[in-house]
């Protein structure tokens, strides 16, 4: 097998164990408990969605799993090994596409491959093209970022995250800024890529229907302090359609449950 073929084979998914994680921030003189005593297990190849209102610490938890932030208490284990910092086995896709304007589309997808010493320039190019094809943008390899639509930019960002062949994909509200039509098309793409590549995915969202469309398991979180309120196994057959009536019904039930947990003062999720 050549380096490229080896590189393109899906990396085995990773198992995550979050043990007693807590994190506080100083905000002026007040202390904000972003996360308090979080315990969560994510199995190999599982698609877990974290859902909650703003301030429930879901994005902070994602950053801690990514190793971009360190917890005050507790630890995150990736396949049993404590996470000590960022690593390309756990790549984050952000809400903003954050594509680099000085590189064309292909250059952006290649970016993460630079840090893999076994790939030369030609191999990087080949790998990047493979993932561009996967998100259906091969024809735009040499376009500049500002020439793409919002949905295309987010596809390129997805390809850039997939290219280093991570074992966990961490997604921080990656579809929140897109229009509904584009978003629904991307749900289809993501489900297809996930079933083809079997990655462990943790997705943060405040959109309950999005979580039910994508996730195997839905984790409901409540704020002040950020805690896990409940977990629900989706059990819906795939592929799922966000506009299916039974899905909307489940979403309404879970939203109602979350709203009860939040109490009258808290703003409900969308």
């Amino acid at each position, binding site marked *: 097998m050549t380096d490229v073929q080896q590189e393109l084979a899906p990396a085995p998914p990773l198992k995550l164990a979050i043990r007693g994680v807590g994190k506080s921030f100083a905000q002026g003189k007040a202390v904000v408990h972003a996360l308090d005593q979080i315990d969560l297990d994510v199995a190999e190849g599982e698609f877990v969605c974290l859902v909650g209102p703003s301030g429930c610490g879901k994005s902070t938890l994602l950053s801690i799993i*990514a190793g*971009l932030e360190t917890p005050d208490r507790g630890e995150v284990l990736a396949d049993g090994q404590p996470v000590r910092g*960022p*690593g*390309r086995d*756990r*790549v*984050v896709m*952000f809400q*903003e596409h*954050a594509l*680099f*304007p*000085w590189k064309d589309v292909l250059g952006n997808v290649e*970016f*993460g491959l*630079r*840090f893999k010493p076994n790939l030369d320039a030609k191999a990087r190019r080949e790998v990047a093209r493979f993932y561009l094809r996967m998100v259906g943008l091969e024809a735009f390899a040499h376009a*500049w*970022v*500002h*020439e793409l639509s919002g949905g295309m930019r987010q596809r390129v960002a997805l390809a*850039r995250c997939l290219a*280093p062949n991570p074992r966990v994909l*961490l997604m921080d509200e990656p579809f929140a800024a897109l229009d509904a039509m584009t978003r629904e098309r991307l749900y289809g793409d993501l489900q297809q890529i996930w079933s083809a590549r079997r990655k462990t995915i943790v997705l943060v969202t405040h959109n309950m229907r999005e979580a039910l469309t994508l996730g195997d398991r839905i984790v409901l979180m409540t704020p002040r302090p950020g805690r896990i309120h409940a977990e629900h196994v989706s059990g819906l057959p795939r592929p799922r359609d966000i506009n299916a009536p039974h899905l909307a019904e489940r979403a309404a039930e879970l939203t109602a449950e979350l709203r009860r947990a939040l109490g009258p003062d808290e703003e409900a999720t969308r």
Partner: protein
Amino acid sequence: MRRWAVRTGFLLALGLLWQGLASAGVWSPVLLPPPASVLRWLGAAAADGTLAAATLVTLRRLTVGFAIGVGLGLPIGLLCARSRAFDDTVGLLARGAQSLPSVCWAPLAVLWFTRADLAMLFVVVMGTVGSIAIAAADGVRAVPPIYVRVARTMGAGGAATWLRVVLPASLPFVVSGMKQGWAFAWRSLMAAEIIVPGMHAFGLGHLLHYGRELHAMDQVLGVMIVIVVVGVAIDRVLFASAERALHRRWGTGRSP
């Protein structure tokens, strides 16, 4: 094409107006030499090589001084963005140097370096360093933090993040800082050449200075025209293509 026609027509009309005023004889030819005599001087100076030699001398001083200025200014700017302590000390000096017209250094520079050439080089460097350092520091500070997070999550270390993300992301600032630094260098060199006497190598500023000494205003105007042409040409060659490339990538620079 149309815009070129407008520009050429405008310049021709300006020349005709000038000729008209000069031939009206209201002012003495010393105050307002007619365009023909300026052109005559330009032709003679071009033919005997004075102009080319002076332009070369000036350009050499400018490029050497600018290169040193960039070489010092870029690292100073990057260090300012990285370290608060550095910014509060060397960065403070850089900001001070930028607000001082660098030709003010000329009297001291002549005493310190005794050689006129080195003194003028010093003036050019002092005119360049500040604006480049400040632009580089601002450029680094303006890099969206999310770019750095992207690089780190992909496994980039500190050095790779700087080299592959922070530096390219700050390029628009750095290029406009270099352009400003170049403009400062050009102005300060002209001022320095006019007030620091040239012993061996005459630059364009010296030609202008001797035109004044000889009351040859055709020469003064001729040199002024050459300075404008050289300045515009360098701007086109050096910066226009870099700016176009940045605009194409960032999707900026088009009128809304």
